[in-house]
C-alpha cells in the first residue's frame, strides 16, 4: 500500500520534470538523428549563439520582459481599483460576468475581432499596441482575482479605521495596502505569467513585428529549427520556474 503510493507520487513528478530535462538536453544538442535517443554530440553553440551573437533572441527576451512587466503592473493596479468598485456595486454579478468574458474567450479570436480598431488607431504592430491588447485580457483577470479580496471583513477594517479618524489616503496606505500585499504580489506575478506566455493575441496585434519569445518559438518550429525552439522554450520556462522556487503561490494561475 505504502509502496504503491510512493511509486505513484514519483511517477507523477517524473512526468512533470521530464519535459524540462529533455528540452534542456535539446538546447545542447547537434545532429539528433533518428533513431538515436541521444544526439550525436553535445554542444554549447546554441547557447553561445544566443548569449553572444543572435541579437534577435535577446531582443525578444527583452520585449517579453518589457511587455509582461508593463502589462502586469498596470493590470494589477487597475484591477485592484476597479474590483473594489465592482465588489461593492449593486450589479456586482452582472459586472463580474462582463469581466469574465474577455478573460475566458480565446485570445486569438478576440484579437482578430479587434485588429481592425488597433489598425485604425495606428497601434498595431508596436509594443504599445501589444501591451494594450494584453491588458484587455489581464485587466479582467485582475478584477476577478481581487473580487475575493474585497470581502465584508476588509470593508469592516476600512470602516473601523475611518471611525478611528483615518482618512482615505491613510487607510489605503496603512490598512489596505498592508493587508493586500500578498494579493497584490500574487496578482502581479500571475498577470506577468499570462503575458509572458501569450501567443495568439500577440501575434495578431503585434503583426509578428513585435517579437516575443513565444513568437520566436513558433517561428523556429515553422523552420523546423528544433534546437532554437528548445532554447527559446527554456528561456520562457525558466523565469516561472524560478518564481515557483521563490513562492509557489506566484505561479498558480489558471493555465489555459
Amino acid at each position, binding site marked *: 500500500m505504502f509502496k504503491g503510493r510512493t511509486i505513484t507520487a514519483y511517477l507523477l513528478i517524473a512526468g512533470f520534470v521530464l519535459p524540462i530535462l529533455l528540452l534542456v538536453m535539446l538546447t545542447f544538442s547537434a545532429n539528433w538523428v533518428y533513431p538515436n535517443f541521444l544526439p550525436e554530440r553535445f554542444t554549447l553553440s546554441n547557447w553561445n549563439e544566443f548569449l553572444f551573437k543572435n541579437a534577435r533572441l535577446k531582443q525578444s527576451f527583452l520585449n517579453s520582459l518589457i511587455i509582461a512587466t508593463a502589462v502586469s503592473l498596470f493590470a494589477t493596479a487597475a484591477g485592484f481599483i476597479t474590483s473594489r468598485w465592482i465588489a461593492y456595486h449593486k450589479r456586482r454579478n452582472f459586472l463580474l460576468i462582463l469581466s469574465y468574458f474577455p478573460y475566458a474567450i480565446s485570445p486569438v479570436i478576440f484579437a482578430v475581432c479587434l485588429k481592425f480598431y488597433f489598425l485604425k488607431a495606428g497601434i498595431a504592430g508596436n509594443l504599445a499596441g501589444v501591451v494594450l491588447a494584453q491588458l484587455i485580457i489581464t485587466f479582467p483577470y485582475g478584477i476577478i482575482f481581487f473580487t475575493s479580496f474585497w470581502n465584508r471583513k476588509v470593508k469592516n477594517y476600512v470602516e473601523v479605521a475611518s471611525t*478611528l*479618524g483615518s482618512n482615505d489616503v491613510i487607510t489605503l496606505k496603512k490598512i489596505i495596502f498592508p493587508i493586500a500585499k500578498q494579493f497584490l504580489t500574487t496578482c502581479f506575478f500571475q498577470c506577468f505569467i499570462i503575458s509572458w506566455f501569450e501567443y495568439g493575441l500577440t501575434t495578431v496585434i503585434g503583426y509578428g513585428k513585435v517579437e516575443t519569445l513565444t513568437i520566436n518559438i513558433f517561428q523556429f518550429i515553422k523552420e523546423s529549427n528544433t534546437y532554437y525552439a528548445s532554447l527559446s522554450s527554456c528561456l520562457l520556462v525558466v523565469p516561472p520556474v524560478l518564481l515557483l522556487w521563490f513562492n509557489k503561490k506566484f505561479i498558480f494561475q489558471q493555465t489555459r
Partner: protein
Amino acid sequence: MYLTLKNISKNYGTLEVLKKVSLELQENKTISILGKSGCGKSTFLKIIAGLETAASGEIILNNTNISNIKPSVRNIVYLFQEALLFPHLNVFENIAFGLRIRNVKKNIVAEKVKTLLQQLALEREALKMPDQLSGGQKQRVAFGRALIINPPLLLLDEPFSSLDVETRATMQQLYKSIAEMYNITALFVTHDLKESLIMGNQIAYMENGSLTVYNNKKEFINDMKTGVEGEIKFWNSL
C-alpha cells in the same frame, strides 16, 4: 442633552429598516438597546457613526449637528461584534493606530498605549499579533484602540456576543469600570436581556426598525414585548 437623535429613517429599496427613530442620551451615560438580530440595530449604529447615511433625520452631538460630517471627522468609534484588529499590526500598534494617524509624538504614544495596556491587563500581549490572542483579549485590544482617541461617543455592536459565558462576565465588569474611568458616553447594542440590564444606565428596545426608550428599568421590565416577564416567570417556576 449630550446626544440627540431626531426621526432617523432608513430604507433599503422598499424595505424600511428604521422608522423615525429618536433618542436622547446624557453625557457619561450608557444606553442599552435590546433587539433581536435583523431588527435594524446595526444600521442604526452605522448611521450614527457616519458609515451609512440616513434617509432623513438629524444627529446632534454636543450641540453640533453632525449628520453630514465624514466618519473620520466625527470621531465616533464603532466597535463591531468581531474585534477586527488590523491583522498586520501587533497589539501595541493596533492600540496606537488612532494616535499614529494623528501624528502624535512617539513618546506620548508609547506612554498612552502603555497606560491602556495596563488598565486592560494586556501588558504581556503588547508584541503579539492578533491571531495569537484569545477572543476576550482581542475585544480588549479593540477597546483600547477605541479609547485611546477619547471618542465623544462609543458605539458597541454586541461586542461580547462571540465570547464564552465566563469571559463575557469579566468583560462586562471591565467595561463598566473603564466606562467610569474614562467618562464614556455609549450606545450598547445587545440581543441578551441580562446584558442589556447590566450594561445600561438607560434601556431601549428595538423591533422592526422602531425604537422604544424606557424612562426607567421598571417600565422596561413591565413591557410585555421585551420578554423580561417571561424570563422572570421561568426563573420563579424553578
